[in-house]
């Protein structure tokens, strides 16, 4: 699993996660992900290249969203309609963290 971050226009930071977001993968990205959630205000987490998601990965996303919110920022997720999105929805994450299918939709929401 790996993580890369990129600054977009409008003060938005895009975090791209790739690979298997399971217990093993979550341990690898947890620290850098928390650092971004702590330092940045508007965050898009792109899960398009994540092919698997389990509860430890959900935990990392939820903690990140809580950290961002606690300092007045916001974190949203981009994920196509696949099994990873089904895991997010089954876990009730779509009610807590805004979930979009495209980066354009996520960017528009953060800019609003």
């Amino acid at each position, binding site marked *: 699993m790996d993580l890369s971050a990129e600054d977009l226009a409008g003060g938005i930071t895009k975090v791209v996660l790739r690979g298997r977001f*399971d217990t093993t993968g979550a341990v690898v990205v947890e620290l850098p992900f928390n650092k971004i959630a702590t330092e940045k205000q508007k965050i898009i987490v792109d899960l398009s290249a994540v092919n698997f998601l389990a509860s430890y990965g959900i935990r990392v996303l939820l903690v990140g969203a809580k950290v961002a*919110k606690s300092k007045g920022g916001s974190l949203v997720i981009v994920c196509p309609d696949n099994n990873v999105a089904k895991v997010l929805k089954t876990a*009730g994450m779509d009610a807590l963290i805004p979930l979009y299918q495209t980066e354009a939709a996520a960017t528009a929401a953060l800019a609003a």
Partner: protein
Amino acid sequence: MIAMRNGGASRLVLGNDVAELERLAGWIEGFTRQGTSPDVSFAVQLCLEEAVANIIMYGAAKNDSLVIAVELERNCGTLVARIEDNGRQFDPTRAPPPAPAASLGEAKVGDVGIHLMRSFASGMDYERRDGRNRLTLRFVEPATLSSE
């Protein structure tokens, strides 16, 4: 056409070390590479990761080493997974569903693993026998596959 192989159980024995989850994932991938739909493969990966991670993290008293045996078997259009461990008694089928959070600030971190297992498996049974937990998970293939 996807070939269906009936019978032929495969077995993997793991210790209670988080590093074992990677071995589990690779083994499931090998088993489901042929004759399993992508959705069922995903569901098996998810449910076994959750079940075995729970046993590894919470099944042992301090410093105890556990033996976790996982078995996968195809039975007509159903994939059956059995997990047996000698850890402390725990019946995931009786765990209460997580309470929905009213807001992000109030949301509890954790507690979703068993809920995911319930949702992604077609069925889940538990028994405690001879000092061991035995969890059986069933995954039914979509009709288009089993009718081939």
